[in-house]
């Protein structure tokens, strides 16, 4: 076979046959890569258990769908349009060029090598596609570099307290990507140029691809020059390829490898919290020496996979309400600091580079971990499916176990333990709110009796003067819809939703045990609540209960059935906006029902805020978060109220007592009294009953 230029595998370098060099490079590269991966796997093997294999396998279809959506189709990327599109193109380019890179590696070992099945039409089609892929990869990699170096989006910045920026690493990798596609184009372009010059049958080069450009640029270069470019570009490509491969696991580009696994292992169920320790029974829990995450070794292997997978894109922190108000929490750095500690503890060679010490006080700070409202915005946003809530809760479990609980939280926790509510109010007063219902609305206080539907009120709606109105409105709605319902009265204790999320697992379990028993005694076939935190607890933290729904779901159905009808909203000046409560929306995917209820009120003007539905912005947090005194520059609620004003609304409708507390406070703090008001969906619906 005649060649226009000497192919890489047939050349020599310093009298050594080049194929030997081109065999050695992959052998050394792959060996090194395997070694690095093994060293990276080591801490995962040593880590705590995570989801058992049976659980993972039980959800394989759902997991595959997640892989297709989140990984392959990059579903979450366009939420940041420009960066998202750049990444989708880069990612698609990677997938397409993977095959070509494999082929190229062998071309250096055996002259004329082509992958099986790739020498025919299929190969020709592939060659056109991959040539364009290489071209667009160069374009988007340059765009990404421009963003990193010139545009510098704020979310990439690294605050000084978290260390150095990662721009250099990002640009270095982008540089390698550019080198790879350029060298590949030069390798092919120089060959075709030579083929054309020698009148040989030339490869087809798709127009306006990199190779096509190089061929045109080099059309009149002499053969020696072409040979130099051909050989040098191959050599550089080969070296860069394996450098790139081995560099990936060194930092944020590890996601190239780990994201597939991470997405496959993402949570399938939402709203729940991982057990204290996987694989142990309730009784064994009491015998555990330690609870939660206190040291690096207490993380699970999936937590570590999360650390490896963080791309440092800053989307989590950009959506984190705690970060937005200046609380000392940035979810991105939960991952980055965790990864830095892992790398220092398990270096690729030699002894650990950092002395062993508890995580709190060294890697993480107490206030950082208490700052999280568990709103889930970070998890919703992460393009590679990193989860934070379980980690935060595990760290809190560790702090609770060590007694490190802020004084502001100790009182409400102790009151919940003693009286079943965080204010320490008397149990017998739990049903007092029913006395002030307007109109003839009978509320059965079950305390041993039966009812068809149980209205689970929970603490704040039972005891807070203002929030009692939500309970009263809910009871009115249930009554008007003809439901046989009752409440538990003094037999109800706090659902424990935040108790669990603040790390006091044993207290949560005793609340769950008590409430479960009381709920079962009522013989109710359905549970309704107006509190999304109670909804989430009963639905996702409790077990074996009758179906639970939020009042908005109930209302939407009754409205659709025609069982409830609303009179017109007479006030033409009012523009309503619905604030999605985190535990109704993101954690339980109820977005449309509350809107359907609002839209069923004739004449009601409604707008959506820019941040709505799964991008809703937390009001400031519920449950125990009301008691926590965070370090912050402003309130989340204030930011939220301003967002409502920007949307052109003057009434914020929410569907959660905690959201209402925070919104009403925020309206006052922001000095927007008279300009903005807040109301609960149940109250608004009850006001509009025919």
């Amino acid at each position, binding site marked *: 076979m005649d060649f226009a230029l000497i192919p890489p595998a047939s050349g020599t370098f310093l009298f050594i046959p080049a194929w030997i060099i081109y065999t050695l490079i992959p052998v050394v590269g792959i060996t090194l890569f395997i070694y690095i991966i093994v060293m990276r796997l080591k801490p995962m093997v040593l880590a705590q258990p995570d989801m058992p294999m049976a659980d993972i396998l039980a959800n394989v279809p759902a997991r595959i769908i997640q892989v297709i959506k989140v990984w392959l189709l990059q579903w979450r990327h366009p939420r940041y349009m420009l960066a998202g599109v750049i990444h989708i193109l880069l990612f698609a380019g990677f997938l397409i060029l993977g095959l070509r890179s494999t082929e190229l590696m062998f071309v250096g070992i055996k002259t004329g090598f082509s992958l099986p099945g790739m020498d025919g039409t299929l190969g020709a089609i592939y060659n056109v596609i991959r040539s364009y892929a290489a071209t667009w990869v160069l374009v988007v990699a340059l765009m990404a570099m421009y963003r990193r170096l010139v545009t510098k989006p704020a979310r990439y910045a690294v605050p000084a307290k978290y260390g150095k920026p990662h721009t250099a690493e990002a640009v270095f990798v982008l540089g390698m990507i550019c080198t790879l596609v350029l060298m590949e184009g030069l390798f092919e372009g120089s060959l075709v140029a030579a083929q054309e010059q020698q009148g040989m049958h030339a490869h087809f080069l798709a127009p306006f691809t990199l190779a096509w450009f190089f061929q045109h640029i080099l059309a009149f270069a002499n053969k020696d020059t072409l040979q130099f470019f051909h050989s040098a570009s191959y050599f550089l490509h080969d070296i860069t390829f394996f450098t790139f491969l081995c560099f990936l696991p060194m930092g944020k580009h590890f996601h190239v490898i780990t994201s597939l696994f991470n997405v496959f292992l993402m949570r399938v169920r939402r709203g729940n919290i991982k057990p204290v320790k996987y694989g142990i029974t309730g009784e064994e829990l*009491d015998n555990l020496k330690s609870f939660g995450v206190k040291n690096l070794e207490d993380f699970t292997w999936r937590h570590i996979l999360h650390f490896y997978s963080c791309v440092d894109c800053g989307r989590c922190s950009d959506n984190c309400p705690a970060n937005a108000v200046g609380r000392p929490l940035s979810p991105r750095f939960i991952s980055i600091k965790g990864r830095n500690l892992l790398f220092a503890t398990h270096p690729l060679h030699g002894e650990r580079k950092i002395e062993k010490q508890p995580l709190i006080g060294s890697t993480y700070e107490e206030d950082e971990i208490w700052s999280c409202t568990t709103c889930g915005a970070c998890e919703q946003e992460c393009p590679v499916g990193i989860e934070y809530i379980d980690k935060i809760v595990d760290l809190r479990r560790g702090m609770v*176990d060590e*007694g*490190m609980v802020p004084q502001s*939280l*100790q009182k409400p926790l*102790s*009151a919940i333990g*003693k009286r079943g509510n965080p204010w320490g109010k008397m149990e017998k007063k739990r049903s007092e709110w029913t006395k002030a219902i307007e109109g003839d609305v009978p509320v059965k206080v079950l305390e041993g009796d039966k009812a068809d539907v149980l209205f689970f009120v929970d603490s704040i709606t039972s005891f807070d003067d203002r929030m009692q109105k939500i309970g009263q409105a809910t009871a009115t709605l249930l009554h008007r819809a003809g439901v046989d319902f009752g409440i538990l009265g003094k037999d109800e204790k706090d659902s424990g939703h935040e108790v669990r999320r603040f790390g006091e697992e044993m207290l949560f379990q005793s609340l769950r045990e008590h409430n479960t028993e009381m709920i079962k005694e009522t013989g109710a076939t359905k549970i309704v609540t107006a509190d999304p935190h109670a909804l989430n607890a009963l639905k996702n933290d409790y077990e074996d209960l009758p179906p639970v729904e939020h009042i908005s779901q109930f209302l939407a159905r009754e409205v659709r059935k025609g069982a409830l009808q609303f009179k017109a909203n007479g006030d033409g000046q009012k523009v309503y906006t619905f604030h999605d409560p985190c535990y109704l929306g993101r954690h339980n995917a109820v977005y449309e029902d509350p809107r359907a209820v609002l839209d069923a009120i004739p004449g009601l003007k409604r707008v959506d805020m820019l941040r709505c539905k799964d991008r809703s912005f937390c009001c400031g947090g519920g449950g125990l978060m009301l008691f926590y005194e965070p370090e912050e520059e402003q309130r989340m609620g204030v930011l939220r109220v301003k967002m409502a004003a920007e949307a052109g609304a003057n009434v914020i409708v929410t569907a959660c007592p905690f959201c209402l507390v925070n919104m009403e406070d925020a309206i006052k703090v922001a000095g927007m009294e008279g300009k903005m008001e807040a109301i609960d969906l149940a109250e608004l619906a009850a006001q509009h009953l025919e």
Partner: protein
Amino acid sequence: MEILVCVKRVPDTAENEITIKGDGTDIQRDDLVYSVNEWDNYATEEAIQIRDKVGGAVTVVTVGDSEAEEILRRQMAMGADKGILLADDAFEGSDGRGIASILKAEILKGKYDLILTGAQADDGAAQVGGMLAAMLDWPYASLVNKIEIDGKKLKIGREIEGGNQEMNEIELPCVLSIQTGINEPRYVGIRGIRKVASVEIPSHGAGDLGIAAGSVGAAAARVKRADYFTPVMGKGAEMLEGSMEEKIDKLIELLKAKGGLK
């Protein structure tokens, strides 16, 4: 250092609505929840921190009935090494002096370098600590908000007017009454209490302590409780009625009317 912390089980004012029995003999106790007296909790935390710094052991002691054992367990879950319950029917109805003499008898059975009490109890009269020190003839300092160990001596602080700090020196052994705010007491969860659920807590009665039954208890009390009642509203006093919001609105109105708020 061997430290003894005197603790008391009290109705928690944050979690109870205190009302008085119709006959004026006591407060309504039917629906009360109890906890360790807040000041005593700070004292226990301080003792644990001192022990962690200089070594030794922390013992918590209470005079009470068998139900008082729960607070000893709680303080042990916090980190105290040992609990002692001083219980005897003969102790019932003791006045402050009686309680101090019971504690004194227990203290003399051991070898303690430092006795801590809370500055006062939620339901108490802030008298036991001082009397106990006098009975032991040990130096005593009250309202302590800072302790520094200095060999056989302690440097102790007390807050004075204007947020200023006063420092004193005191020799061991001594009795200190502890003010809240001296530290940040650690949290005790259910798990912690369960861990010490089966630890044996010795109970000492009058016989064990060598106390003549007649010298303590209601009969020996020289301060006798005579009555409980709710004071009648004085001249110029006004009770605001209504919901919390309404009360606040009225209060603000009143403050504005009297020039207290502009």
